[in-house]
């Protein structure tokens, strides 16, 4: 009874030899890891590396084939998600699982049993009080009576974290929590995470954004092909070594280095392909004018809500263009809708590939040929698609873009995020547009996948296409673009070209607007 182990040596959660097989895939391969109380652990890996499966097993949503879990040295047997909740494990998923039509208070307290009067009627005042308590711990200004559907994405994430706190969670898993958050909101999220850590809560932070991993976490767990390949203090890693762990090969390059090594300079001296003049739309786009040349990659940057997506949607005619003209090869596009823009040679690869880019229940083949079916006819005059011609086209694109799919008849729903994005790209390459607008093509795509998408854009430019590239990660724009437009409140407020393109310069323009 003399020397007891220090408290921090007793891990909160121990994962031992967890293995999970799906037909044909070893999703999680003998993973052993332990999580201590009150630490912030980063979990990184490519899409398909096994992160989500591991999280699902800890959440009780999937059963492991082998291995076991221990919580506070007691065996933890999870049969369903509710068991994990009871054990004090809380999960905030990337796609928010809140109920938009219910109030903040109802969402926070969901699954805990609402407080009641007379054993029957919900005690709303008490419900709001309890919810407000959890929200207060996050230092967030959110009215418990507000409908969740009216909140911003950042606020909705906080509501989900508050739910975890209300459940007395000891472990909180955040899956890509910074997606679609502004920089300020991310700072607040980080502050929240650190405060929870100080309260003794363990936070597992899953992200593809490595800057965030370095800024926030104390330890990093890296998964690759279902295996745990690294478990190290964050301070012992740098960007290069972390990327090496993630990808399994040397791959360290900053955006500026990429720009220099690829020789990305100013815009080429070629003909103007796309000319946009004074475009305004009711979606908050005001008097935008710019042009793009043949072989040029034009970046569009700006903070969240600056109107980047809205601007290109108005240019493409996805939203109604109230004023202004759009010309492709000097010809004005008169039809103010997508099919008109397409026949003029304009293509928009929308921001959300699931809801706007792909038909998820269509095959890879049918998605690739969807925008160009009239070029895959059995006879030129007969509007009947030729399966053979379609298959040839699909196979060619699958090969060219290295889309990881067993065959061209696979449903797009079953592909990983990066490959779904490549199918959207393939559709527009097949359509043969001269101007391709990529709206956030790398969201949710892992390091290797991102690099492949940059390569595709560069190849397209080299072939003489005009490319417009929208990204909320400024480093991406720096690594790839000849020229960058910066937007603020639906207006173009800055333009950088050639050597002037750098991350600090873009950030400077963004923040000098306030």
């Amino acid at each position: 009874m003399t020397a007891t182990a220090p408290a921090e040596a007793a891990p909160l959660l121990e994962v031992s030899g967890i293995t999970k097989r799906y037909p044909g895939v070893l999703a999680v391969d003998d993973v052993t890891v332990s999580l201590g109380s009150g630490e912030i652990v980063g979990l990184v890996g490519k899409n398909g590396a096994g992160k989500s499966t591991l999280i699902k097993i800890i959440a009780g949503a999937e059963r492991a084939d082998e291995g076991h879990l221990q919580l506070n040295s007691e065996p933890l047997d999870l049969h369903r998600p509710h068991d994990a909740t009871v054990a004090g494990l809380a999960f905030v998923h990337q796609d928010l699982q809140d109920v938009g039509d219910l109030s903040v208070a109802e969402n926070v307290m969901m699954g805990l049993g609402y407080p009641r009067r007379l054993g029957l009627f919900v005690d709303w005042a008490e419900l709001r009080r309890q919810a407000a308590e959890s929200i207060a711990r996050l230092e967030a200004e959110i009215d418990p009576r507000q409908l969740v559907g009216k909140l911003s994405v950042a606020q909705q994430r906080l509501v989900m974290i508050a739910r975890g706190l209300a459940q007395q969670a000891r472990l909180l898993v955040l899956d890509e929590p910074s997606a679609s958050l502004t920089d300020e909101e991310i700072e607040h999220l980080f502050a929240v995470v650190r405060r929870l850590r100080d309260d003794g809560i363990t936070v597992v932070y899953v992200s593809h954004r490595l800057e965030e991993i370095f800024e926030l976490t104390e330890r990093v767990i890296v998964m690759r092909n279902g295996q745990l390949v690294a478990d190290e203090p964050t301070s012992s890693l740098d960007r290069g070594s972390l990327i090496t762990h993630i990808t399994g090969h040397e791959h360290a390059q900053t955006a500026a280095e990429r720009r220099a090594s690829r020789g990305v300079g100013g815009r080429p001296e070629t003909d103007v392909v796309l000319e946009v003049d004074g475009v305004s739309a009711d979606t908050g786009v005001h008097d935008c004018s710019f042009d793009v040349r043949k072989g040029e990659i034009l970046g569009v940057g700006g903070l969240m809500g600056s109107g980047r997506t809205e601007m290109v949607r108005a240019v493409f005619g996805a939203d109604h263009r109230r004023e202004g003209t759009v010309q492709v090869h000097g010809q004005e596009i008169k039809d103010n809708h997508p099919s008109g823009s397409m026949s003029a040679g304009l293509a928009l690869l929308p921001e959300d590939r699931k809801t706007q880019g792909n038909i998820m229940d269509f095959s890879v083949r049918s998605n690739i040929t969807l925008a160009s079916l009239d070029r895959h006819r059995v006879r030129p005059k007969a509007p009947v698609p030729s399966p053979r011609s379609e298959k040839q086209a699909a196979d060619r694109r699958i090969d060219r873009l290295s889309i990881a799919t067993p065959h061209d008849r696979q449903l797009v729903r079953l592909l990983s995020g990066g490959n779904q994005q490549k199918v959207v790209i393939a559709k527009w390459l097949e359509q043969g547009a001269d101007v391709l607008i990529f709206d956030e093509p790398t969201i949710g795509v892992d390091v290797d996948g991102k690099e492949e998408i940059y390569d595709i854009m560069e190849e397209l430019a080299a072939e003489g296409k005009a490319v417009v590239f929208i990204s909320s990660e400024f480093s991406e724009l720096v690594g790839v673009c000849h020229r960058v437009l910066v937007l603020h409140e639906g207006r173009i407020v800055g333009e950088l070209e050639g050597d002037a393109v750098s991350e600090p310069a873009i950030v400077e323009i963004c923040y000098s607007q306030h």
Partner: protein
Amino acid sequence: MAEKNTVPAPPGSPKPGSGSSRSNFDLLGFISTYGVFITLVACIVIFSVLDSDFIEIDNLRTQLGLAAPLLMLSLGLTVVLAMGDFDLSIAGTLSACAAAIVVLIVNHDWPWGLAVLVGVAFGLGIGAINGLLVSYVEMPSFITTLATFLILLGVEYMISDGRNITGAADMPDLYRDLGIGKPEPFTEFTSPVWIAAGLAIILWLLMSKTELGRYMYAIGGNPEAARLSGINVKALRALGFVIVGFVAVIAAVSQTARTASSIPRVGISLLLSAYAAAFLGAAASRQGLFNVPGTVLGVIFLQAVQSGLTILGYDRDILDISRGSILVLAMLLTALGARRR
């Protein structure tokens, strides 16, 4: 980003368990894929054993003749359902057109061709109105077509006064032939069977072989992605309702020509069966999509059960319970299959 576990492992990575699970016959998977076929075959076998009249060629002829209007309606519905819309007004269009055509021919001595033409114009008009409201004004299809359905029932009542209108003597033989004639040289079945078969083939070609059909399924899968791919979503959705209106008139002609009468609200009894058939058909398809062959199968299924139980002497109550149960069973099998995917 969620890892998708169904993506096969890259070459060279271990593939445990693939040997043992492959060799086991996947019974549940088989049942969920072919459940509707299996149940249909089982029904036919059981009915045939219990009463040999069931598989007589005469019964087959009669049953197909009876099923033809239902098949036509179900086929029309398949088109709108594939695009993610509902059309309840189809039963109203059928009823109102049936009444109008019979009244024009029997009470007003119109030439039958002209009466049919008026009916077709009426059906196309109703379809266009539905399409306009749903597709261009962007009203929800379920409630919109429920409203037009109610209006059409009222219109039918105005035309027919709520009475049966019969007039076998006043109907030209040529018109009756559209319902009971056996066109040369295809004398095996009556005209409605051939018309329904023709319609099935045309719509099958449209839905599964043409660009238009591909676009329609794309709209059903994701209307916004379809629109951004340059597909004219509004026009195609509206076209779906126009097709339904047209099909309803064809069904009205077949029905009235066969019975030489218009029976008030004749469409209502068909409406639910038509939806049941289309959903059975979707349940029979691998991906759960509404499709023409599936719908044909669904109609045959429902008619086989009805015929079999009638021959065995069961009443209406048992018939309805059986049809409802079959639908639940088919959906159950599909849901089990989907859970495994």
